[in-house]
């Protein structure tokens, strides 16, 4: 989310009753600098002749949980005039908060759902970065919430909405988010203090002043001149007359343009995975699906072809040891590691892989005959099992470690004869067969079948569970077709399979649809 924005719902502030405190709520996650920000604001205010009061309820929320800091400011002059100290609140009142600062997008959403943000009063300063909740992270597929909905509600609910990825900006300036948020607060002009006073507060705090001020300025400037960028898209480019060029031509001339966004990255992936012949096979396998979609699909959509193309490409480029090795030894990968770990030029980096292949993974890349023998011969199986009992830490950036992976990657040229290749080819064929058979009769169901390989992913036990679930779905299709809304039910089954990693939810659904082995339908 590159975009930074400033939405001003030009609703005039309701005429303020005489002297009233300025209220500021800071929503952050524990240990995220919300306290620092609150302290800066207090120090700033007290040096600008304001009375300041801040409270928080850290408790165990300091342990990464959502927590809220609350600040109230009151002009000392008004206090002298009245000859009395103001009574400041210790917690925000819904609808009565002047400034809400959220260090993360879902926390901004939380502020809104808690009623702290009101269109007639509140300036909402939100960082658009996401710190994903546990619920989002542990989903077996994609459990992320909708960031656009969060941002849209910010636009609608706040009097002024200032949003930007303040976390990234802080990182880019070698600082922390409290500094950039402080800068945005200064730039918002919602507090009666000038920029200098803000920066002086940072000075007085005395810790990593330089980097904090750098980040502060960056946020201050970009908040005043919002820059509208665009989210980066990964796109593939092809050399004219490069080896894949003919296939690009074939795609553009014989396949609908709606699926190019899938087909182009797909052929690149498959070429790298195996060879040009493999790309040929890929497109050949898709042609009948294309024709079926033209004939039975909703016009212009090509959903069946798109999803079949997607999952066929992913399936054909299955992750065996050869592919993993091939990806890990690339120069581009070494460079990526340096970049991600922020390795400076005068520093060296050592890369260690954590590998724990099982007998099955060895058998997979062996010639089908030997692989099968290894799996079915008890003593051989046990022997290899003992060798692979404990995981291996492979030192890829050392010559010996690199060579091991390099040689495994080199097995590519014999992959077609490997046990796994044979197995996957068989399964792919029957899956495509299913689709071809279903499409004319029940296009929607065929689409669901096309999407079902989404279940097959991961390695080891995760892979086994996924494959098992996939097979289960494929076997119940014939009976599904005799039940109402087979497409909707197959989708429901797929979602159930992705709802937990024990298969329990899938079993429940199968029972519900009366599809358990032996269950009559």
């Amino acid at each position, binding site marked *: 989310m590159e975009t930074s924005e400033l939405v001003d719902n030009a609703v005039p502030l309701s005429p303020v009753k*005489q*002297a009233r405190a300025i209220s500021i709520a800071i929503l952050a996650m524990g240990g995220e600098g919300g306290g620092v920000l609150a302290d800066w604001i207090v120090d700033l205010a007290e040096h600008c002749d304001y009375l300041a009061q801040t409270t928080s309820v850290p408790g165990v929320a300091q342990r990464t949980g959502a927590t809220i800091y609350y600040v109230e400011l009151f002009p000392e002059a008004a206090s002298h005039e009245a000859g009395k100290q103001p009574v400041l609140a210790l917690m925000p009142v819904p609808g009565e908060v002047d400034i809400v600062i959220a260090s993360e997008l879902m926390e901004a959403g939380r502020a809104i759902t808690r009623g702290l943000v009101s269109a007639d009063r509140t300036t909402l300063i939100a960082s658009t970065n996401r710190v994903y909740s546990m619920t989002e992270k542990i989903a077996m597929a994609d459990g992320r919430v909708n960031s656009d909905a969060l941002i849209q509600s910010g636009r609608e609910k706040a009097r002024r909405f200032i949003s930007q990825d303040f976390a990234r900006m802080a990182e880019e300036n070698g600082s922390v988010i409290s500094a950039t948020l402080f800068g945005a607060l200064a730039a918002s002009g919602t507090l009666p203090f000038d920029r200098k006073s803000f920066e002086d507060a940072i000075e007085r705090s005395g810790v990593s002043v330089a980097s904090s001020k750098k980040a502060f300025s960056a946020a201050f400037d970009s908040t005043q001149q919002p820059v509208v960028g665009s989210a980066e898209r990964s796109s593939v480019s092809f050399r004219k007359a490069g080896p894949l060029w003919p296939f690009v031509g074939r795609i553009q001339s014989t396949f609908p343009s709606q699926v190019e966004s899938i087909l182009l990255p797909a052929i690149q992936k498959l070429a790298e995975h195996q060879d040009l012949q493999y790309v040929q096979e890929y497109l050949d396998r898709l042609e009948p699906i294309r024709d079926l979609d033209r004939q039975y699909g909703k016009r212009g959509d090509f959903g069946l072809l798109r999803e079949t193309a997607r999952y066929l490409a992913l399936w054909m480029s299955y992750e065996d040891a050869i592919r993993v090795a091939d990806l890990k030894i690339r120069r581009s990968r070494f460079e990526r590691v340096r970049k991600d770990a922020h390795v400076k030029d005068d520093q060296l980096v050592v890369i*260690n892989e954590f590998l724990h292949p099982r007998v099955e993974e060895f058998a997979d890349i062996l010639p089908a005959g030997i692989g099968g023998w290894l799996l079915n011969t008890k003593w051989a199986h046990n022997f290899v099992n003992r060798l692979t009992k404990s995981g291996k830490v492979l030192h890829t950036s050392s010559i010996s470690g690199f060579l091991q992976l390099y040689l495994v990657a080199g097995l590519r040229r014999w992959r077609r004869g490997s046990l796994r290749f044979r197995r996957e080819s068989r399964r792919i064929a029957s899956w495509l067969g299913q689709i071809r058979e279903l499409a004319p009769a029940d296009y929607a169901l065929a689409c669901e079948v096309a999407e079902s390989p989404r279940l097959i992913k991961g390695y080891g036990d995760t892979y086994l569970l996924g494959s098992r679930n996939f097979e289960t779905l494929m076997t119940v299709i014939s009976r599904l077709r005799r039940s109402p809304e087979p497409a909707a039910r197959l989708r429901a089954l797929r979602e159930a399979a992705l709802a937990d990693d024990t298969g329990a939810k899938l079993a429940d659904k199968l029972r519900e649809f009366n599809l358990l082995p032996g269950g009559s339908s």
Partner: protein
Amino acid sequence: MAERFFTKEVQTLYLGAGQEFRGEGILAVTKALLQSGISYVAGYQGAPISHLMDVLTDANHILKELGVHFEHSASEATAAATLAASVNYPLRGAVTFKSTVGTNVASDALANLASSGVTGGALVIVGEDYGEGSSIMQERSHAFAMKSQMWLLDPRPNLPSIVDAVEKGFALSEASNTPVMLELRIRACHVHGRFIAKDNVRPKFTLKDAMENPVRDASRVVLPPGSFLHEQEKINKRWPAAQNFIRENKLNEFFGDGRQEFGIILQGGMYNAVIRALELLGLSDAFGNTQIPLYLLNVTYPLIEDEVLRFCCSKRAVLVIEEGQPDFIEQNLHAILRKSGVTTAIHGKDMLTMAGEYTAAVVTKGILKFVETMAPQLIDSGKLPTLARPAKQPSVTNGLPSNSLPILDQQVQPRPPSFCTGCPERPIFTALKLAEREIGQHHVACDIGCHLFSILPPFNIGAHTMGYGLGWASNAAFNTDETSKRTISFMGDGGFWHNGLTSGVGNAVFNQSDSVLVVVDNSYTAATGGQDILSSQAENPIRTTRQSIADAVRGVGVKWVKTITRTYDVAHLRDVFKEALTTKEKGPKVIVAQSECSLNQQRRIKPLMKKRMEAGERVVRERFGVDADTCTGDHSCIRLSGCPSLTIQPNPDPLRLDPVATVIDSCVGCGLCGEVAHAARLCPSFFRAQIITNPTKWDHFKARVRAAVIGFLQSRHERRLSQISA
């Protein structure tokens, strides 16, 4: 070494008469203690008064200068018992702990103390952990004051009032020979404000004087006939004495227009919320000049009958604003009015809420309801605050109908606290999860501490928690030879020394339990902010540390004891769990799982690393990573870890829809990711990057050779790719 340092802040404790103090509530309390001339102070950490203990620790040298003895008590019971010093001698002392949980633990000593009565002022400062931010069951300290006849102060939540309450509290205690409880709510403990300081006072009568001239008075001992005498004393002498003191010193306050024929009676702690509510309803200004008369109870127990009658008799009705339940004060007021035949109506829980925190919103709505029935003309319905306005139909903001809120609700998920990055406790539960995959689920008891986060996703481990240090005790019933299945109990090092050694370990040995205890030993009471305890490994200048938990366990008779010194070794820990749960050997089994709390470790190590780097020494920093192109986005690694630094990111592969796992910069390289990838045979995507700063000549040489060979092969690989791709 605690999580927060107050070394700079404690300098403000030196402030003298007339100077302005600026700072946090708990720091103000400490200053007030010194201004009151205490001789000793003790306590047990726990939110919201953890910082008070940290302040006292960092202020120890200042306390010593004033002849004040400070103790980190072994438990709240120890702290409360410490007040015995004030029974026979004119010594002022204070203790502090989290309430109500700490008060539960302390109540045996408190009951004895309250029975004996005190000569010197005794102050019990309880951090009322109630409402938002609370981590415990929702109860009130009020009940303890009532049952033991101690007086309960609930001052207005501003620094001058809190400081005044401390000073008057001691005086009240001495005037009535009764220990006094001072209740501070969470926000009051952390509130930043100002007050005008007084000079610190060195006690005239010191601990030395007492120890060198011991006195005793058998009638102060809780044993018949003393105990019966004490009860009479409480009612006939101490109670009236307290009431006189409270009345004469005007500890309770009256505000606002006395002629109004209705008013509000409130706890001192509720003052700011009530004034804000009145302000929003146009019934007060920001300075508390209210149109509604207030009777404010800075002392919530006992109530002063004649003050109550004076306030109520001229009024049709009063609204009681009393947070929490049962509604002790409201009931008490009913009794006072009925007995004296005053017909003033009492409202309270009927207009606010019976249970739950009295937020500004709740209070505002309650007062609005009350005033609308009493004098609707006072309310300008056109100027009602947003929260009191009738709910609007789909509002229209800047042109478009705002229908995004219903959607929004689904986008906002709860974000409970969880194990920190690098936490050594997380791998313990990863290992247990893996062990249970092989040998099935077991009944697991939790305890108080960070490890309690195991009940949340992704671990979902643990069935109950019965209180600090009571993890193993809470599984005592599951002790039968009708099954070979064993239970597992967890206990932190904090809970272990607090009471677990006897209530759990001793009990299990004595009753020949055949179950498993896991002592999570991270060298601190981590959840309360990383304070030191007996088994802490840190050198602590004022405390004795480095006592072995394993030795203590053996000392009370456990034979099967295993110590794991690196909890990140998941595979090993998993096997130890399996052995403990399946071994033929009967009897109590204890696993001591040791690794230092990551928060504290990082705080210790980061500066050292920085220094060594700047000094040009060779430093190796480790962090983990995930190869996005081999990760398939099934997230099973996250379901076994839950580390904040192991998260997800959009899939760079345009063909894939599911986000991939990623390790962000906050990673401290604890190693769990790799251990899990191995132990659970997850996936080959994890790698550990070792970043070498200030490499040696040998490092450089190796790097050059490797670059040459590897670079050559990588170029070949690239050529091959370019022949078939792009």
